[in-house]
């Protein structure tokens, strides 16, 4: 048993540094907001036009004019700011957002990502994913290591239509933390608690680089 989605979110929260501007995608990435370390000021960006997105509102504070990119009712923290979509993607393209965390269906060993379309199934659209992956300075993918059929999602090359090319820097899965090397390949950085290097090797189809002893993640 590897990490559950909360464990993945907790591990990603360890990547945060005080003062960062961070865009969290829908799903597991959203959970990262619950584990921002005490005393750290992180400005969450929501691409529909918020910097300083706060938690969900209490019932009495629900405002239909204030939602996040997942169309959920949210709040804004003191010191937050609103802007329009064109400006929002301007700050993303210009590299002002320090970290983007998003989910993926597949990641390739050269950092390509596929997360918007499955041929033959209803296509709902890419939303802001293509813009985010094409421009973000640092992209961490939060995902399960294998799909529901047990097949590796870390591949030599993506089989699904791409969202972006050579953009993923780091993957935090239920089994491991891996870096995508500039020259290609997944470098194993950490193991999830109780997970062996052998299991990670068996579930990683793309090129896996293992150097020396691989430490276990520390997750509280």
């Amino acid at each position, binding site marked *: 048993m590897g990490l559950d989605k909360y464990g993945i979110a907790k591990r990603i929260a360890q990547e945060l540094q005080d003062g960062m501007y961070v865009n969290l995608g829908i799903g597991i990435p959203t959970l990262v907001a*619950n584990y921002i370390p005490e005393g750290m000021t992180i400005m969450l960006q*929501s*691409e*529909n*036009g*918020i910097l300083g997105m706060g*938690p*969900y*509102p*209490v*019932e009495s504070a*629900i*405002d*239909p*004019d*204030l*939602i*996040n*990119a*997942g*169309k*959920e*009712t*949210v709040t*804004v923290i003191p010191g937050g700011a*609103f*802007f*329009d*979509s*064109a400006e*929002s*993607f*301007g700050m*993303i*393209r210009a590299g002002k957002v320090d970290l983007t965390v998003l989910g993926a269906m597949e990641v390739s060993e050269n950092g*390509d990502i596929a997360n918007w379309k499955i041929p033959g199934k*209803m*296509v*709902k*659209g*890419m*939303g*802001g*994913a*293509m*813009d*985010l992956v*094409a*421009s973000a300075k640092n992209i961490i993918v939060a995902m399960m290591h294998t799909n529901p059929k047990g097949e590796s999602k870390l591949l030599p090359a993506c089989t699904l*239509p*791409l*969202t*972006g*090319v*050579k953009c993923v820097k780091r993957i935090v899965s239920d089994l491991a933390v891996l870096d995508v090397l500039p020259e290609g390949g997944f470098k194993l950085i950490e193991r999830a608690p109780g997970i062996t290097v052998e299991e990670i090797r068996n579930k990683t189809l793309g090129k896996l680089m293992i150097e020396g002893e691989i430490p276990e993640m520390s997750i509280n």
Partner: protein
Amino acid sequence: MQKVVANADAAIADVPDNATIMLGGFGLCGIPENCIAALARKGVKDLTCISNNAGVDNFGLGLLLQTRQIKKMMASYVGENAEFERQLLSGELEVDLIPQGTLATRIQMAGMGIPAFYTPAGYGTEIANGKEVRAFNNKMYLMEYALHADFAMVKAWKGDRYGNLVFRKTTRNFSTSIAKAGTITIAEVEHLVEPGELDPDHIHVAGIYVHRIFQGTNYEKRIEKRTVRMNGK
């Protein structure tokens, strides 16, 4: 200067069949509810609609899908709409999916008089097919064209008789750019005020872009996903 019209029906009275219409909003947040209802009443057909989303089954642009008034939809995400899916799969509806930032900037450029621009979004993916590719500083970009509309429709919080608009919270979304991209721009507002009542320092869209304005009524402001905090978390 006479921009004020009586209501939504008067504002959209000259929208013809086959028109290209841009509508502000993100999901159901900040959509021009009154204009959409008036378009449904008027029954104009074969519309090309440009909007980030396509509403839900019985609200927003979903209302115009139910009545089969939309021929083509240009959007970044059309997830929450079963009727949309049915019409798409049956071939009744044409869809052009555009990355959200590219869509926002294509609309913004129309309002800035710039015909095209380069963006990295979608490079190396299927949406790059047929597009000009160019390298700047060793990074690859796609050329994208400005996106104009015959009619642009937005909803603002406050507006004055000269068409100056002020938005509230995340309702600014696509609306401020869309307001500048229409040959005819129609603004519906929650509060129509006299010139001078809005602080010039706080105007989000200057009146020059707005051709018609009216006081909207009966705003439902439906919430798509009502999420609430539990015990402070």
